[in-house]
C-alpha cells in the first residue's frame, strides 16, 4: 500500500498540524457563515424542514418527471441504476399533498412515499441537535477517563471535533443535506474517529521504544484499519446508491468523506500534537 510507505516522521509537528488547522478554520468560517445567514450550519433535508420524498422505479426521464410534477414544489430528481428515481418535494398544505399522492399513485403505483410535516421537522431538528451534543460530551468524558491526561485526551477530542466540522463543511459544499441519516453518520464518525486516535495515543504513550518507530508502526496499523472500514463503507455506498436505498446511501457517503477527513486529522493533527507533547518531555 502506497500510503503505508509514506514517511510520517519526515515532518515537524508544526508542519503536521498546519493543514488540518487551516481546514478546520475554513470549515468553521463556512459553517458559521451558513448559520448566520440561514439559522442552521448546514442545508437541512426533508427530515428537518418537512416535505415529501418519493422513491420510484420508472423508465420516465428526468424531464418527464419534472413536467409531471411541475404543479408541486419539486426540489430535485435523483437517478440511480435500473430506472430508480428519488424525487423530493418541499412542504405543502394538506390539500396539495393529497392531490400529489393521488397523482403519484396514478403514475407510479409502486413508489415509496414518505412525508414529514413542517413543524414536526423542526422538532426532529432540535432532537438531532441534542443527540449530537450529548454524544460529543459523552465521548469527551470517556476519552478523558481513559487517558487521565489533559493534552493527549484534548488532542483526541479536538481531532474528533475537527472530523465532524470539516466533514459537515464538505457536505455543505458538495450539497449533501443534513438529515436524520446524515446526523447518525456524523455521530458514527465520532466513534470511528476515536478508534484510530486511541490506537495512536496508546502506542505512543504506553509502548516503550523510539518515538519514530512507534509512530511509523501506529501509522501502518491505523491506515490498514481505516482502509478496511473504507472498503466496507464504499461497498455499502456503491450498492445502496445504485439500488436507490436513499438512507443507506446518505449514511455511507458521509462516512466515506468522514473517514478521509479522519485520516488527515489523526495522522497530522493528533499525531502532530502528541509528537510535540512527547518531544517537550510531557511523557512520564
Amino acid at each position: 500500500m502506497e500510503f503505508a510507505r509514506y514517511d510520517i516522521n519526515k515532518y515537524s509537528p508544526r508542519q503536521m498540524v498546519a493543514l488540518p488547522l487551516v481546514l478546520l478554520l475554513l470549515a468553521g468560517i463556512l459553517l458559521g457563515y451558513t448559520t448566520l445567514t440561514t439559522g442552521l450550519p448546514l442545508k437541512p433535508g426533508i427530515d428537518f424542514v418537512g416535505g415529501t420524498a418519493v422513491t420510484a422505479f420508472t423508465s420516465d426521464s428526468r424531464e418527464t418527471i419534472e413536467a409531471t410534477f411541475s404543479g408541486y414544489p419539486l426540489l430535485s430528481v435523483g437517478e440511480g441504476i435500473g430506472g430508480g428515481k428519488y424525487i423530493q418535494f418541499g412542504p405543502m398544505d394538506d390539500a396539495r399533498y393529497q392531490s400529489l399522492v393521488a397523482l403519484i399513485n396514478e403514475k407510479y403505483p409502486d413508489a415509496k412515499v414518505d412525508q414529514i410535516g413542517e413543524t414536526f421537522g423542526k422538532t426532529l431538528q432540535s432532537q438531532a441537535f441534542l443527540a449530537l451534543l450529548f454524544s460529543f460530551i459523552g465521548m469527551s468524558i470517556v476519552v478523558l477517563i481513559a487517558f487521565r491526561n489533559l493534552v493527549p485526551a484534548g488532542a483526541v477530542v479536538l481531532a474528533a471535533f475537527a472530523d465532524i466540522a470539516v466533514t459537515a463543511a464538505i457536505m455543505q459544499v458538495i450539497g449533501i443535506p443534513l438529515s436524520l441519516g446524515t446526523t447518525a453518520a456524523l455521530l458514527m464518525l465520532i466513534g470511528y474517529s476515536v478508534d484510530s486516535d486511541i490506537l495512536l495515543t496508546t502506542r505512543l504513550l504506553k509502548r516503550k521504544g523510539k518515538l519514530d518507530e512507534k509512530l511509523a508502526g501506529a501509522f501502518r496499523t491505523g491506515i490498514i484499519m481505516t482502509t478496511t472500514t473504507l472498503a466496507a463503507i464504499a461497498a455499502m455506498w456503491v450498492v445502496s446508491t445504485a439500488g436507490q436505498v436513499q438512507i443507506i446511501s446518505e449514511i455511507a457517503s458521509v462516512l466515506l468523506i468522514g473517514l478521509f477527513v479522519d485520516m488527515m486529522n489523526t495522522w497530522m493533527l493528533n499525531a502532530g500534537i502528541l509528537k510535540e507533547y512527547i518531544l517537550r518531555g510531557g511523557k512520564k
Partner: protein
Amino acid sequence: MNREAIINLVKDWRVALLLVLVIGSLAGIYLTPPDLQKGLEGNLQFGLDLQGGSWLQMEFQSVIVAYSTDKPVGDLVDNLQKSLEADVIQIDQNHLEIRKSVSRADLEPLFAASGAKIVGYQEGVSSFTADEVKRILNDKVNALGMQDARINLLTPTGSEYPQYVRIELAGVDMETAQEIVGKQGMFEIRIQTTGNETEHVLFGDQITSVGVPQRDPEYQTWGVGFALTEAGAQAFREAALKQGAVDNPGAHHLVMLLDNKTVYSAPLAGDLAAQLRSGPVRSLSATTGTGDAGLDDAMTLEIHLRAGALPVKVDVVGSGSVPAALGEHFKTTVVLAGLLALLTVGVVVYYRYREPLIVLPMLAINLAEIIILLGIARFIQQLDLAAIAGLIAVVGTGIDQLVIITDEVLHEGRVPSQNLYMKRYGRALGIIAVSAATVFIAMLPLALMDLSTLRGFAIITMLGVLIGILVTRPAYGKVIMAILSK
C-alpha cells in the same frame, strides 16, 4: 493444526462461548419456530421499509399545564372549558390536560381570569390519555384482523408527556391506513319500549363530549359522563317521557349500540328521571359498577361512547408507505451490499497480510459476529434499512479491531512467547475497549430518543460493539494465537 490443538482451542471459554452463541443464534433465527417457507429470512423481523406497509405519525393536539391557585379547581376547569370550547381534565393535584392546541400566551389571561397562575406548560397528553389512544387504535386494528401492527407512543427527549403516536401497518397501503385510523363507528342510543323492542333516541353525532371514568363518592360506583347537544337532550327527554321511562325507569332500559351491537344497557337513574320531568338534561352519566370490574367496564364504555373517535384530536405530521415489491427490492439490495462489504474487506486484509491463515479467521469471526447480532436482533429489534446500515458499519469497525489485535500481537514480525503474547493481547483489548466505549456512548442518545427513526441503526451499532468486545475479539485473539504458534 492438528486435532489436539483444535480440541484445546474449542475448550477455551472464549472460543466455546463464541461457538455456543453462533449456534444459539442460528437456532433462534431458524428453529424457534421452524419455518421452511421463509427460507433464509427465518424468524428475523423486518421493518416496514423492507416488508412493505404504511406508517402514520400523529401529533396530539393537546397541552399539559401546571398551575397554582387558591380558588376551587372546579371553577377553573369550568371556565377553561367554556372559553376554549375544549375538554379540560385534571390529571393530578396541579396539572391540567387541555385537549386543544393552544399557546401558553393565549392561556395566561384565561388562567388569570379564574385567579390561577400557569407554572409550567408543555405540549402533549397525560400518560393516561395516551394509553387510551393506544387502546382505541389497537381495538380498531384488531377489529380488522390485522396481524402486524405496531402502535407506539413517542415522547420527545426533554419532555415528560407523550406528544406523538406512531402507527405502523405492514402490508397495508396509505389509503387503507388512513381509513383505519380515521374510521368511526356508528353509535346509537335506543330506549326499550315493550319486551325486547326498542326505539331510536339519538345517534353518536349528538354527543358533544365524553369524560373519563369517575367514581361516585356516595355509591362508590364507576361511571362515564357525557354531554349531549341541545337537540340531543331534547330528543332524549321526549323519548323518556313518551315511553313512560320517567315514571317507571325499571321497565325501560336505555340501550347503547355501537355498529348495531349492544355495548351498554341500564335503567334510567331515579334522580335523572326526576330532572327529566322538569326539563332536558345535557350532562348525563352512565354508571357501570363498583371495584376494578366497574372501572374496566367504564373504560370500555368510554371508548364505545366515542365510537372509535380518539379522545384528543390528532394531526398527521408524517406518513409514508412502501409497496411490498419495493421492500423486496430493498432487501435484495442490502443483502448484496452486505456481501460485497464483507468481500472487499477480505480483499483489503488479504492485500495487507497475504496470509490466508490470518485472513480466513478474520472473516470467519466477522461473519460469526453478524450471525450473533442477527440472533439477538431477532428478539429485540426489527431490521429496517437504517439498522442494516448499522450492521454493515459493524463489519467495518469489527475488522478494524481485529487488525489492531493482529498487529499488536505480530509486533516486529515474530510470533512472541506465551507471556509476551498475553501482555500484547491485553494491550490490544485495552485499545479496543476504549474505542468500543466511545462508539457506545456516541450512539446512546440516538438509541434512547423516542423520536428518532434511527433507533435501529444506533441499537444495532451498540450491540455490535458489545458483542465485539465481550465475545468475538477475545475469541479471535485465542484463535490467531493457536494458528500462529503451530
